[in-house]
């Protein structure tokens, strides 16, 4: 490639990379500002917005709700998703494309439709404006990720492993616990990470289906942003960025680990 073209390409790529990270790089320092205004760079550093966050009963409740709903939804999505992925791997069933379509449908349907439909359906059941309603909704949204990651982990392994286990005298339960589970565990955990991240990120369903008692961090941020932008919101945003970074690192490590395991199994 010509020198000018190369230069232009590199400049565009670098500028785009900066465009991607710059907004986050502005939010984090501002959350430590000692000022009440959006002064950048901050005139001084302080933890006052984190203190405000910690002392506000609303934000605390939002944090607790986020963790409860996220953990419960992740547990349901991981359990059901792992079993389903093992089922898909075990035998080719008739109607496989339709089964996949059904499992992936929560990823495809625009989330506003999910939010409105679940509100409409859950209200007469008493599930609207309840933790359980949101847990079920987030579990459905997270389950496809678990199925996909566990299935990807399993694709590296031969089904003959199961026959070998039973030939060695292992019953179905032992085979599941001692052979299958250790194999799929990295996939299950990284699927669970995706499912939790989905719940942590989810704003629209919470806005429509949740009541005042189901305030989560995204919902509380949405409400705050409709008002005036207080720096407490940026402290909450920084907490969420930190959480995302941790989840990102965990997911990368697990991906590397399961790639190593799969290549070891192929040898």
């Amino acid at each position: 490639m010509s020198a000018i073209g190369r230069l232009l390409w590199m400049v565009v790529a670098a500028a785009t990379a900066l465009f991607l990270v710059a907004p986050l790089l502005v939010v984090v320092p501002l959350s430590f500002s000692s000022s009440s205004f959006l002064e950048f760079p901050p005139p001084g550093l302080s933890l006052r917005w984190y203190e405000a966050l910690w002392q506000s009963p609303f934000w605390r409740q939002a944090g607790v709700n986020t963790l409860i709903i996220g953990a419960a939804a992740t547990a349901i999505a991981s359990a059901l998703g792992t079993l389903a992925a093992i089922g898909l791997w075990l035998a080719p069933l008739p109607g496989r494309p339709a089964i996949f379509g059904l499992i992936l449908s929560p990823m495809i349907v625009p989330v506003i439709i999910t939010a409105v439909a679940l509100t409409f359906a859950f209200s007469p059941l008493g599930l609207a404006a309840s933790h359980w309603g949101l847990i079920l909704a987030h579990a459905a949204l997270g389950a496809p990720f678990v199925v996909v990651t566990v299935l990807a982990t399993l694709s590296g392994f031969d089904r003959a492993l199961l026959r070998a286990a039973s030939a060695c005298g292992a019953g179905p339960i032992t085979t599941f616990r001692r052979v299958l589970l250790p194999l799929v565990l990295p996939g299950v955990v990284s699927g669970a990470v995706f499912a939790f991240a989905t719940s942590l990120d989810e704003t629209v369903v919470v806005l429509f289906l949740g009541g005042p008692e189901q305030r989560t961090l995204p919902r509380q941020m949405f409400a705050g942003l409709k008002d005036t932008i207080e720096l407490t919101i940026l402290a909450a945003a920084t907490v969420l960025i930190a959480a995302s970074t941790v989840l990102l690192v965990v997911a990368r490590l697990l991906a590397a680990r399961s790639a190593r395991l799969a290549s070891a199994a192929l040898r």
Partner: protein
Amino acid sequence: MGRERVKLEAALLLAPLLLFIATSFVAPIAAMLWRGVSDMEVPRAFPRTLAALADWDGRNLPGDQVFAALADELVAARAAGTLNAAAGRLNSDTPGLRTVVFTTARRLARGVEGSPRAAILAADPAWGEVETWGALRRAGATPTDTHLLAALDLRRSADGTITSVPEEQRVFRAVALRTVWIGLLVTLLCLVLGYPLAAALVFVPRRLFGLLLFAVLLPFWTSLIVRTAAWMVLLAREGIINQAFLALGLVVEPVQMLFTRTAVLVAMVHILLPFMVLPLYAVMRQIPRAQLRAAASLGAGPVAQLVRVWLPQTLPGVGAGALMVFIQAIGFYVTPALIGGGADQMLPYFIGFYATQTVNWGLAAALSILLLVGTLLILALFGRFLSLAQFRAA
């Protein structure tokens, strides 16, 4: 283990998830979409009137037994409390019918003198018009195309022909066009910015690779609401960009950036860009570098190498990225709601609006059908194109 037994085990393992998704996801969505082609309010209030209207010719006023049924049911519905919802539904078909229904019911409740026909016509002259009865029959039909037509700014008149609503009442065609337009713009901008970045990921030295990949993955993993908040901080009147502009003397007073179309586009491109970069990178990584050297040794210049060797092989990535960005873009709710003005709201906003603010479930459901069918259609069309392209590439 026999083959059949393994299949049974596989089915049993799949069953819990399929059952869960079917009951707590698919069934609610199907029930909501059904509201888009059916009506509940008017049939609940006027079941016998609607049954009697079934064989009405639609050109002359209906017969006496229809008037009699309506007179009974108006009074009964007023007492039972189902009249309000039915009147609201009729009013959304033909503005003004709410008053007609309430006035008539109130007068009839005081006692019917003479024939029901005479009493109803005396209560409100609107019942002497064929259009009123047409509206009543339309609002009671299941399946009905009323809501779907309304979602396209169309309506059916008493004789059954479909016409556009008056110019000043048209809303949804503009909204649908705007949704597609914003989706296309965001996709194009993501492609223009994402392509060079994805290529850079393939060609940069290892040291820089980690940094670049981090720049793509960190926003990808960060909450959508956090990224929207970040753009609000940057674009606000007292925000970072205005501060910088003022300090540099580029402007004398703050520029209004928030609540504009540009702001919506910038934030949406920022949020969706990783969905373009990652599939592009995955495809570009597979292209052997030796091909470019081979092309060069065969006399291809830099432009020919790019256009004839590199570019065609990246098309599956372009397709996959564009598909992912576009179908997500047309479903965006939070970002336009916070960063856009009234003229930047897309279909999802109106679905939410009609489901909560005005509680017009039929219209909310019809708009949902529009959005969902659009999404699935694009997925079906481009999904096939994608696999073909990948097949060719392989």
